[in-house]
């Protein structure tokens, strides 16, 4: 009987904390909650019959040049992508992109290939190899992935951080020990610029769904030239607390140049209450993931490796379009009218003869 009582007490002791603890839950997973692009990913880009090679040990740098009309609306997007291979070995790499044309970039030690919606690299790296390509992109499929919108109006130029999105998240009362571990991992990953994986946190109780605004923090600097005047500007647009930068300008025809770089995440002091720390950790995790997205306007062959991107917006006259001219409806109907005319010309005498003999 005593044994039974002891067993009962032990069972109750084990059951009691379990009744208050919910199973661990994953922090919102960036690939699931954030938009898919950037990096740009055309749906119809073909696949190689062989797996790509050389997926680690490379750096990716990009310079995205956006041509704007006098209102600030993009009319062209070009990217200089420079991939530096830093070890010996064969490489077969593809970069999905809505690509119109590809040409070798400065310092490239190999020729880029082009397929439908793909930039192709293939060869052997003797220890270090620079692969650089200028890619002209289709505007419709690339403009939506740009980090800022520029608006030129009489009296002002406005630069707006366009990376902000509202994503599903949750709030809850977390287990402090488990949360401390997860929070530490998120912070150290951001410092090391590597993507944290497998973030699960223990909870005390249930979760409450929430909506969270996430944006990539951007460092913006540029100049507006109006007449002989040059107006420099700069600022940090985190996309949550501050999304816009407004530069007053005098009357005239402004020429705008804006340089944008995703900025490193500033780590705030850890929040004191567990619930606030959980919210802060989720925000940090997703903000870093969003920032990483804009570090790769075109995908890096090593998505988790070092990447950086600079976006340069310039007022410029549109270049002659490299896009193949679509068959215009007017042209088609012209051909149709000609065919109809020829048909009628041939048919009328025949009809006349038939009618005469009827």
């Amino acid at each position, binding site marked *: 009987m005593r044994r039974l009582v002891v067993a009962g007490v032990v069972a109750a002791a084990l059951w009691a904390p379990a009744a208050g603890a919910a199973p661990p839950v994953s922090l919102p997973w960036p690939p699931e909650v954030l938009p898919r692009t950037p990096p740009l990913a055309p749906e119809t880009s073909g696949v190689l019959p062989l797996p790509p090679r050389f997926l680690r040990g490379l750096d990716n740098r990009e310079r995205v040049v956006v041509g704007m009309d006098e209102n600030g609306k993009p009319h062209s997007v070009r990217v200089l992508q420079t991939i530096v291979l830093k070890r010996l070995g064969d490489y077969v790499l593809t970069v999905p992109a809505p690509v119109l044309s*590809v040409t070798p970039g400065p310092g490239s030690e190999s020729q880029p290939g082009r397929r439908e919606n793909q930039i192709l690299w293939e060869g052997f790296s003797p220890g270090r190899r620079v692969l650089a390509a200028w890619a002209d992109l289709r505007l419709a499929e690339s403009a939506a992935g740009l980090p800022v919108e520029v608006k030129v109006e009489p009296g002002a130029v406005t630069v707006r951080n366009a990376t902000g999105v509202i994503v599903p998240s949750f709030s809850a009362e977390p287990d402090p020990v488990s949360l401390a571990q997860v929070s530490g991992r998120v912070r150290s990953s951001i410092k090391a610029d590597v993507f944290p994986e497998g973030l699960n946190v223990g909870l005390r109780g249930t979760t409450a769904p929430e909506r969270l605004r996430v944006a990539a923090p951007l460092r913006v600097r540029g100049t507006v030239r109006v007449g002989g005047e040059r107006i420099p500007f700069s600022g940090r647009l985190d996309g949550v607390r501050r999304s816009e930068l407004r530069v007053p300008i005098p009357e005239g025809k402004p020429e705008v140049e804006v340089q944008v770089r995703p900025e490193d995440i500033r780590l705030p002091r850890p929040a004191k209450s567990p619930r606030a720390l959980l919210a802060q950790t989720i925000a940090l995790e997703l903000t870093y993931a969003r920032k990483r997205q804009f570090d790769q306007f075109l995908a890096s062959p090593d998505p988790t490796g070092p990447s950086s991107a600079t976006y340069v917006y310039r007022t410029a006259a549109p270049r002659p379009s490299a896009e193949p001219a679509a068959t215009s409806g007017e042209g088609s109907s012209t051909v149709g009218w000609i065919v109809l005319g020829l048909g009628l010309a041939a048919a009328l005498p025949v009809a006349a003869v038939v009618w005469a003999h009827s």
Partner: protein
Amino acid sequence: MKRLTLLSLVLCAFLPACGGDGGSEDSAKTLLVAVNAPFSRTPYVGQTIADGAQLAADEANIQTDEGTYRLRIKRYDTGLSARRAVRNVRQAIADGAVAIVDEGTGVNASWRLANDADRPLGITYQGGVDLVDLEQRPNVFRIAPTDHGTAFRLAEYLIPKHDKIGLIVDDSTYGQEGVKAIRESFSHNPESVAIRLTVPSDAADLAPEILRARRSGADALLVWAQPTTIAGVLSAARSSGWDVPVYTPAAGEDPLVRQQLANHPEWVDGLTFAAGRPTAEVGPGPFLAFQRKYEDRFGVQLVGVKTPEGEEVVQPPDYAMYSYDFVNVLAAAIEKAGGVEDRQKVIDALHQVSVQGANGDHRGFNENNHEGVVDDDVYFARFGGMIYRPVKDDPLSATLTPLEQVR
């Protein structure tokens, strides 16, 4: 009457197999692929191109919505004559060939005939700089190392090793194409060139030319010439006691060089050639599998010389892999194009498809490039005891495994 009905039914059952273009039992249509190569003048080259193409054709099983296609190879001998090569292409088109696999002779004229008929032409041996031109010759593709790539790799390899290099070419088309490539690759280091010589490809004795090269102070020779000229250079140099290092493009591995020097195997030792690598980083597995298939089908290619240990030397089918790969890429393109009704669609599809090459490499073309072998893929191998091994003092070559060359 019943027998007659039965006979009619049996005949009817066989009728579909009798229709179509060369239909077979499984009602697959057969497409003709022409191989235009110098079978009579340089049999090793012609044979290896045709055999590689044949092996791929044997394996091809092209599935489209329109039905199944198989490939048949027909050989046309150029005899190394550009005029005959052009005539062959005209004949191949008249014969209904869907594509031409070409050694390269006469392509400067024959590409136009093929282009007018919307036929792709795939060069699988010659690497001449001007043979492939994306803009001017949109139907010409190549799977073979380019002279440009080979010459640059040779310059990159030789210039740090030698103070003065003697450049020797012969007056064959191959040699003259080499001149263009060498001129460009050594243009940044003219001080590295001791002498430039052009020798007749049918010269019986090259002793005077080799003497001139020696007196020029050359401490290495780069010989871009037909195999017989390479053998002549080695013979003249070694017989005069000049142990100068000799480098060549892929012609140096032609069995003819070793056959001509069979009485002095030590003269071949040290000969270093540049060629497309037969194995890739993935290891020798894919090439060995290809070599096994090739030898099962056509037998081994005996060089006709022996190692110092008395073993028979065989030639690995490294150039056969290029025609093999081209026909495989072609088959993939026909499949993507859904058949050959729209010829231009097949040429367009050649830009978009890839296959695994015989050496394990990715093989294919793209909208920017009709070259199927990248310049990086040129490696160096050196002879010793009548067989060759990748050199160890070049980063790419050092990663490669030696091929088995004895039986």
